């Protein structure tokens, strides 16, 4: 791979965002209309669909920070999101139950406490597993993250007091620092706002010195080392940040569904997130959002045509890998410099 010049932004952030990222602005604006559309058509299914798309989008954007910009093919992001989801659900469980977690901590239905805690734990999980997995590279990294994903999966399956295989229903009423966000439309806007903030955060981070080093590490790790920068700690920090964002997506997922299940943590879901990122385009922070929307639409409408929708979906994935290397972004043709992409080594 030829090294391309990586430099922080020279022009204003807003002007550049408008020029390079107009497709996502359009998409976010259209998404904001989803609840109105849903109630106009009297079709509550639509808003559930788009809530799913927004939250999957958040997880895929989190993954893409390390995948598209750090070159790290992680197959454990479903597990990391699951930590956030179970944090919310378990705290709510103890809140409802009145019992104490580990006999010490009281539960809570306040998302202003449980969501940040979930993000923290996800970041911690990512950092802990990252210490082992990031010392390896390439195929080892992929397989190890896959194994850690299954470790988390089996861990939550084994927690019988929290539903085990069947999952855990959230019976306590959840609130965000006193605000009731349980109505579908309210929750949708909360999720959409969270996605927007996440995109802004990662857009700034990718352009920062930290982001430049991360991208440089993905391109040519040896050269980064030669410059006197230890790449491991940057990758580790990036992995933890990505984990926290995945945890946020998971926590919102649990809140919106009032339910968590280990099946959302299975490695197949991790694979889905990679598909979303690649489908949407890994070169942009917002690319995976497009991928998530397409994924959710396919998942919702393919089964109505045929009972066997996974085979055509799998074929679509195979064809995309063979032909469409830059993701859907290539089709909308947004201009501007590219991230190195995680295709390499």
């Amino acid at each position, binding site marked *: 791979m030829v090294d391309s010049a990586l430099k922080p932004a020279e022009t204003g952030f807003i002007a550049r965002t408008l020029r390079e990222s107009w497709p996502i602005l359009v998409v976010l604006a259209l998404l904001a209309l989803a609840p109105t559309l849903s109630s106009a058509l009297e079709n509550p299914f639509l808003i559930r669909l788009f809530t799913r798309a927004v939250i999957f989008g958040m997880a895929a954007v989190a993954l893409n920070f390390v995948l598209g910009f750090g070159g790290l093919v992680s*197959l454990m992001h479903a597990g990391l999101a699951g930590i956030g989801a179970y944090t919310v659900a378990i705290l709510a469980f103890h809140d409802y139950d009145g019992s104490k977690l580990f006999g010490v901590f009281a539960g809570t239905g306040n998302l202003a406490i449980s969501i940040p805690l979930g993000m923290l734990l996800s970041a911690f999980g990512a950092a802990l597993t990252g210490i082992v997995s990031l010392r390896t590279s390439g195929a080892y990294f992929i397989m*190890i993250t896959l194994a850690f994903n299954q470790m988390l999966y089996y861990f939550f399956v084994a927690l019988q007091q929290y539903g085990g295989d069947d999952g855990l229903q959230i019976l306590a009423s959840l609130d965000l620092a006193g605000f009731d966000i349980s109505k579908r439309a309210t929750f949708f806007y909360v999720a959409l706002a969270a996605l927007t903030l996440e995109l802004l955060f990662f857009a700034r981070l990718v352009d920062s010195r930290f982001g430049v080093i991360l991208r440089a590490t993905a391109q040519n790790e040896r050269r980064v080392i030669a410059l006197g920068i230890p790449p491991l700690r940057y990758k580790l920090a990036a992995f933890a940040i990505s984990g926290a964002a995945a945890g946020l997506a998971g926590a919102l997922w649990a809140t919106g569904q009032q339910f968590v299940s280990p099946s959302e943590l299975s490695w197949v879901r991790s694979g889905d997130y*990679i598909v979303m990122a690649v489908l949407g385009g890994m070169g942009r922070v917002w690319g995976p959002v497009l991928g998530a929307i397409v994924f959710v639409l396919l998942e919702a409408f393919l089964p109505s045509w045929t009972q066997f929708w996974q085979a055509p979906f799998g074929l679509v*994935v*195979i064809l995309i890998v063979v032909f469409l290397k830059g993701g859907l972004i290539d089709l909308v043709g947004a201009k501007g410099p590219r991230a190195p992409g995680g295709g390499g080594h």
Partner: protein
Amino acid sequence: MSLSLFIEQSLNGVQLGVMLFLMAAGLTLVFGIMNLINLAHGSLYMAGAFFAAAFIKLTGSFVLAVLLALPAAAIVGAFVEWAVLRRFYSRGHLDQVLVTFGLILVFNDVVRMIWGVVPVPLPPPDALAGSVHLFEGVFYPAFRLAILAVGALVALALYFVVSHTRVGMWIRAGASNRPMASALGVDVELVFSLVFSAGAALAGLAGLMAGPITAVQVGMGEPILILALVVTVIGGIGSIRGAFVAALIIGIGDTFGRVLLPPALGSMVIFMLMAAILAWRPKGLFPVHG
């Protein structure tokens, strides 16, 4: 833990170990030689079990079914290699993960179309249906003993082929330095196809032996795939010897972890083992590539 339980669990562990070895052997060779991550290896395991079930129904004989199912799995493997995966040897790992992930979805749906979602019966042969009285008070299912024996025999045969024959020499040469092997006149394409089909047959063998113990159903290959990946990584990617040692460690570790520890911890034992071994040796126990 009583002595008889200890013996029984040890046998279970070794038996899981040889099964994992059959899976990991194909995986580790395919990766070591072709530099290809094949997540769809579990699908070949599933294919082996379903083929065996279908051929038993057709012929009524377990032995005949095995003899037909193994080449069938190898042919499926050869076809997938020829039609799709061949194009991906020189592509990045991400593309390989994606394409084999897509293949899993296709495989699962094709099996669902043909056999449906209900588990398919795969009875063990009548001769091996009962239990064997090992010694005082210790009984063990004959079929599981047979698995152990077949697995150990195949492992030995594989070891012999890889380390004492010309084909094995090509394979080892390809695993340690592909361009050099190719330059020295090894027909690398042929070796690729051969190794992939052989790996598919081994995965199929593991699948059809697991069928009578577990259930023959869609997605049955995925849990074992993860364990086989763990084995491959611990053993060192590309190393048959590493795969064998790691398979036994994981088989025994997993079995005893589940018996001795509370479930939440027991299910995590092998992953913690993996983390510990990789923290100590990031390239696995028997690294092949310098």
